[in-house]
Every structure is written in structure tokens, then in C-alpha cells.
């Protein structure tokens, strides 16, 4: 049964209540670029794709803004998405200097060479930053 033709994870989507605020956060705080936007005024929503590379080679983030919706229920099922970074301590200091408070400061995981930190985006979605010294890049 090798007719499975799927290839890769393209993006992950979350709904946001203030698209300008979210775009500012992901570009100015996390250093992503806006890759494309699609505004559908008739259907009252817009999509914004952000990421660190182009969509044909990297997994990106899709933000959906539904006109006029100011609140979503986060539930307790979805957790977070994670970003690999080269120097976590430095990145955390840079982000903190912009007034962002981390939910979890850089912490080395027990029995692992990973160091992780957590922060929340403007809608409260958790984002994990991970440094794996010898594995990546």
C-alpha cells in the first residue's frame, strides 16, 4: 500500500482576533516574514501566511482573521507549535527587551540536551522555542 502520496507539513492554522497585532508579534518579536495574504471581504475573513522561509520548502504559520470576531475559546487540547533556534538565551533576552514576558524561561530538559522556553502570542497561543545544540543547523 505505497500509494500514500503525501509529502510534508505545509502549515498550521490558528484564528486570531487582531490581525495587525498578530502580524506585528510574529514579524517584530519572532522575526518571521509575511509571505502572502488573502483577503476575502465577501466572506468576511482574511488569511495571512508567515514564516522563516518560502512555503515550498518550510512549514509556515497561517493566521485566520474572521472580521469582527474578538474572542475564541482556547480549549485545552491544542498545545503549541515549536520553533528551533540557534541561541535560545540570546533570543530570549532580545525578546524580553521588547517587553515580552516568558511563561517559561530557558530551561534544560532533564536527561536531554534540549533547552526550551515558552511565550504566548497576543491571543494566548503558546509558542515553544527549542535549542538543540548538536542536532540542527
Amino acid at each position, binding site marked *: *500500500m505505497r*500509494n*500514500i*502520496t*503525501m*509529502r*510534508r*507539513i*505545509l*502549515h*498550521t*492554522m*490558528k*484564528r486570531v482576533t487582531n490581525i495587525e497585532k498578530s502580524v506585528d508579534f510574529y514579524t517584530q518579536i519572532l522575526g518571521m516574514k509575511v*509571505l*502572502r495574504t*488573502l483577503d*476575502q471581504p465577501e466572506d468576511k475573513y482574511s488569511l495571512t501566511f508567515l514564516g522563516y522561509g*518560502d*512555503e*515550498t520548502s518550510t*512549514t509556515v504559520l*497561517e493566521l*485566520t482573521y474572521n472580521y469582527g470576531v474578538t474572542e*475564541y*475559546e*482556547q*480549549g*485545552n*487540547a*491544542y*498545545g*503549541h*507549535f*515549536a520553533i528551533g533556534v540557534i541561541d535560545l538565551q540570546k533570543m530570549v533576552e532580545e525578546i524580553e527587551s521588547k517587553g515580552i514576558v516568558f511563561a517559561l524561561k530557558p530551561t534544560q530538559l532533564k536527561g536531554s540536551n534540549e533547552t526550551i522556553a515558552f511565550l504566548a502570542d497576543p*491571543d494566548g*497561543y503558546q509558542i*515553544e522555542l527549542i535549542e538543540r545544540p548538536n*542536532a*540542527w543547523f
Partner: protein
Amino acid sequence: MIRVADLQRSIDFYSKIMGMKLLSTFDQPKDKFTLAFMGFGDGIDSSTIELTYNYGVSEYDLGNGYGHVAIEVEDCQKTIEGIRARGGNIAFEPTPLAELDEIIAFVTDPDGYRIELVQMSADTKASLDEK
């Protein structure tokens, strides 16, 4: 990362129905959770899905904030037929999106999380490459 109510059921779904590989697991009995990482590649050059199982938690509230994860496919219709044949649940049949020049479909996983399948046209891919 998404939390799942039955880890084996989810691993079976993402591997046997969606075609991912189980890349690693991390069991932490003391703290009563297990992590499982699933993906199409090795998890170094490619993104993965992290499944968290908290011992004994059989239900989660999905909320309405988080949307979905999307997977690129070569042929949306063919992929959907394969998923259906393997017992997957199709939430939205393959449909062309004129404004994006894509064909998309949605599948739901055993916990109800939505997975989008996206078949991009060659033109769309080329335009995304240029950026």
C-alpha cells in the same frame, strides 16, 4: 503539539492512515505523560507533529481557536480515496479553491482535530518560490 486521548489510536492514525512515521517517543511515568513525534521526514529538516498523552485523560475540549495542520499532497482526490479506503474520516471532500488555485480537503483525526490536504497547482508553487 496536540493532546490526544488514546496514544496508540493516534499513532495508528497518523502512521497507517496518513502515512507518517513514528520518529520518537518519550515516556515520563513519574509525571504521567508520554510524547510521540510523528512526521513524513526525519524531524531534523522537516516539521513534526508532537502528540502528548496524559495518563488517564480521555477527553479534551478542542475550543475554536486552533484550526488545523495542513499537508501538501500530489493528488488530493487520490489521497482522499486512499485515506477513505484505510478507514479515515473525511470531513470535507476535495474541492477546488479558485482564489488560491488549490484543491483542498479535510480529514479529522481520532480526537477530532482537522487536517487539511492541499494540492497546489504548478503556478501557485512557482509564485510561492519567487517570494
